[in-house]
């Protein structure tokens, strides 16, 4: 049990590595990257150890109970095995009076799974970056931030109380700010960093409120408040705490999730976050930043389950979480169609997939949501690193699919194949990872009565398959369009300059990336192929291992539905087929539809403008407060209020004339003038005290204190 008991080392090692890289990185032979890779590697080993021990731990618990044996006898170890408490260790953080706050770790299946995903992806990103970022101006700083990013996410994962989670959460936000704005010399990059920070911060208001509320939920239940997650989940599922309180807490936390996990309508920062280096995008979108929100939802699931009444869908079967997720699925998927930037396609795809996860949590499919998080991490990291490989070696550091890519299939075979497999996994094609996890979400949504969301999910699957086909076609098929040399390298000039001076193989034309870039791709591709089988319908290892068995809600397990699976694959294949036919020119009738058809033109305009959300935020909300609202207020003032005043004024004038002549001039003015004279003279007299002489002030002070002391002495 050593690995489980000492899981606190997992976030600690990258945190130390951050300090070491920052202090000594520049003097090290490889500028600090070796420290980062070694530290995350060590964390990865510890996470694997923890995962193995956790599985053994469960196996022992199952073996010791008759129920477990029975479960094995029928061939299906269900998550409803004997209760296995999470491993917790805590130390006192601080005490104030009777209030004691502890900080510690809570290791259970969910934490173990996340530790594994985060450290694995982070390790691959670290390795990948050593080539991708070679010669960058702030190479050392980059690795330091990457280490801290990993450490903060791991802190969030292992934390045993919501306050500690909040700290990890905010640190993740800070690191994403640093890394998105890594090339801050260019204004758009630092703007994007600020946007990410401020938008997630909007959601954090909700999170902060929610965390405070968790304290009181526990207080209502046990008598003394605490931020502890186990206590919170117990309290939330006890049924003895006011439903209204839990509901508001769930809604507040949901706002935090919306900000962090890029849910509609706070998703707008996420595509802009592509301004950061590509490995960072992979890390942000696969394992750290954006899944923090989903993780929070999974971790505190009883709060949402009871607060939003997920288990007992009312008429119409919807709740805030499912709705938000469902809208996000469709918004993200449709916007992915009109992007020319390969990374932005993937960014909107991430938004859409995060929508699936939130929707799954919203319809009561906890395991499906976490499972999708798990599989998505691998294929999305694969796709992002693939996009990075394309731009690094194939398109002169451009990400524009229409201008600088195309036809790269032959020159970059490894990148091509890993990208295609990753895309198929994302589109949910049997038997790749995305198929199993997406299907589980759909099955659960249908079984729990949320029929509308099954439709949303299927529609999302169709769109996903189609936009990924478009992306692959533009990047890897057709003619190579990146012939013109370094004309538009402006956006990533820093890497280019540094890269070219350091690069031995030159830039004759597009070529395959070297093994440092392709190795992570293959690892992730392999995982994208096999991880889906972890929750094979008759095997259910994922559910057995990672679903909590205590302090949790009992969501009924749902069997696999082959018809739905076939339908969803068929839909995905349709999407691929239609998109392929369209882009390879076989569907000429549909080409330039947006030029000929007014409806299509309006649709495309809305999409290109991202549903006008950015416009809404910057121009209407921010600009509105600055300009138009002020102008509108001025107009109202001039035309409406003034007229009212003028009308009133005329009537008042008659009265006023009378009052002025008789009451004001004679009566009131006399009093006012009298007061003014007295005040003026008193002021003139007291002015003499203001000598500016320090010691005179001190004397007054002493005399006043003496006077008060004397008064106290006499009157008591």
């Amino acid at each position, binding site marked *: 049990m050593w690995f489980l008991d000492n899981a606190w080392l997992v976030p600690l090692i990258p945190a130390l590595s951050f300090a070491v890289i920052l202090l000594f990185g520049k003097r090290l032979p490889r500028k600090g990257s070796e420290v980062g890779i070694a530290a995350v590697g060590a964390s990865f080993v510890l996470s694997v150890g923890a995962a193995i021990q956790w599985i053994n731990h469960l196996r022992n618990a199952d073996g010791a109970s008759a129920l477990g044996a029975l479960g094995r006898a029928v061939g299906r170890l269900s998550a409803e095995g004997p209760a296995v408490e999470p491993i917790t260790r805590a130390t006192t953080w601080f005490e104030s009076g009777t209030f004691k706050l502890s900080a510690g770790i809570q290791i259970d299946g969910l934490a173990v799974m996340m530790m594994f995903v985060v450290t694995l992806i982070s390790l691959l990103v670290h390795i990948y970056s050593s080539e991708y970022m070679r010669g960058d101006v702030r190479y050392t700083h980059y690795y330091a931030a990457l280490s801290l990013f990993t450490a903060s996410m791991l802190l969030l994962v292992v934390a045993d109380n919501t306050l500690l989670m909040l700290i990890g959460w905010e640190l993740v936000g800070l690191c994403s700010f640093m890394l998105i704005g890594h090339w801050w010399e260019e204004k758009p990059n630092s703007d994007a960093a600020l946007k990410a920070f401020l938008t997630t911060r909007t959601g954090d208001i909700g999170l902060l409120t929610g965390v405070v509320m968790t304290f009181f939920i526990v207080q209502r239940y046990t008598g003394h408040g605490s931020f502890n997650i186990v206590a919170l989940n117990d309290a939330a599922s006890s049924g003895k705490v006011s439903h209204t309180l839990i509901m508001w807490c769930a809604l507040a936390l949901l706002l935090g999730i919306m900000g962090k996990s890029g849910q509609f309508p706070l998703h707008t920062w996420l595509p802009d976050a592509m301004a950061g280096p590509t490995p960072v995008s992979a890390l942000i979108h696969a394992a750290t930043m954006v899944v923090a929100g989903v993780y929070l939802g999974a971790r505190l699931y009883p709060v949402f389950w009871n607060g939003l009444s997920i288990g007992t869908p009312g008429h119409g079967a919807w709740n805030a979480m499912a709705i938000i997720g469902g809208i996000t699925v469709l918004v993200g998927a449709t916007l992915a169609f009109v992007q020319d930037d390969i990374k932005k396609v993937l960014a909107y795809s991430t938004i859409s997939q995060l929508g699936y996860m939130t929707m799954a949590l919203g319809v009561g499919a906890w395991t499906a949501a976490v499972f999708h998080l798990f599989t998505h991490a691998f294929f999305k990291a694969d796709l992002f690193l693939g996009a990075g490989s394309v731009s690094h070696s194939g398109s002169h550091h451009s990400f524009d699919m229409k201008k600088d890519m195309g036809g790269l299939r032959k020159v970059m075979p490894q990148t091509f194949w890993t990208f295609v497999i990753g895309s198929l996994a994302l589109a949910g094609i049997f038997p790749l990872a995305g198929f199993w996890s997406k299907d589980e979400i759909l099955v659960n949504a249908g079984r729990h009565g949320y029929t509308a969301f099954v439709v949303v999910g299927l529609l999302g699957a169709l769109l996903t398959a189609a936009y990924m086909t478009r992306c692959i076609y533009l990047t890897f098929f057709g003619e190579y369009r990146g012939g013109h040399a370094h004309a538009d390298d402006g956006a990533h000039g820093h890497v280019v300059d540094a890269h070219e001076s350091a690069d031995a193989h030159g830039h004759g034309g597009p070529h395959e990336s070297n093994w440092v870039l392709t190795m992570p791709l293959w690892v992730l591709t392999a995982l994208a192929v096999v991880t889906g089988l972890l929750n094979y319908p008759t095997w259910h290892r994922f559910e057995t291992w990672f679903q909590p068995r205590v302090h949790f809600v009992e969501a009924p397990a749902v069997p696999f539905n082959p018809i739905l699976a076939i339908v969803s694959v068929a839909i995905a294949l349709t999407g691929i087929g239609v998109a392929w036919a369209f882009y390879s020119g076989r569907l000429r009738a549909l080409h330039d539809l947006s030029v000929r058809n007014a409806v299509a033109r309006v649709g495309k305009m809305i999409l290109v403008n991202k549903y006008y959300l950015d416009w809404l935020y910057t121009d209407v909300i921010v600009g509105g407060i600055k300009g138009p609202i002020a102008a509108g207020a001025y107009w109202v003032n001039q035309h409406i209020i003034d007229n009212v005043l003028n009308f009133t004024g005329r009537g008042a004038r008659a009265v006023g004339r009378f009052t002025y002549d008789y009451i004001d001039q004679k009566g009131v003015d006399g009093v006012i003038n009298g007061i003014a004279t007295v005040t003026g003279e008193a002021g003139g007299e007291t002015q003499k005290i203001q000598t500016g*002489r320090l*010691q005179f002030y001190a004397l007054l002070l*002493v005399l006043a204190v003496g006077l008060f002391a004397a008064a106290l002495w006499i009157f008591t």
Partner: protein
Amino acid sequence: MLLNQFLLLGAFLFSTGVYGVLVRKHTVLVLMSIELMLAAVNINLVAFGAANHTVAGQVFALFVLTIAAAEVGIGLAIVLLIYRNLRTADLDDLELLKD
């Protein structure tokens, strides 16, 4: 119990300090007088602490000492800057507070 003697000493020191603050003309001497007042307070704190059999008085005295040290550091720095800028540290010539 020797309490009054300490209190008398404290009162005497405090009065000396107040007198110094009020009449000395040189800023540095005024600062020193303030230190005398703080010392008087310290004597009172320790004396009452001993009389009441509690360490709180001594703890407070330690705090006062620390703050006094910091205050002298800042005070002298200010005096030095005033002297540099106005070529004088005589309180009679410093009437900027009037403005």
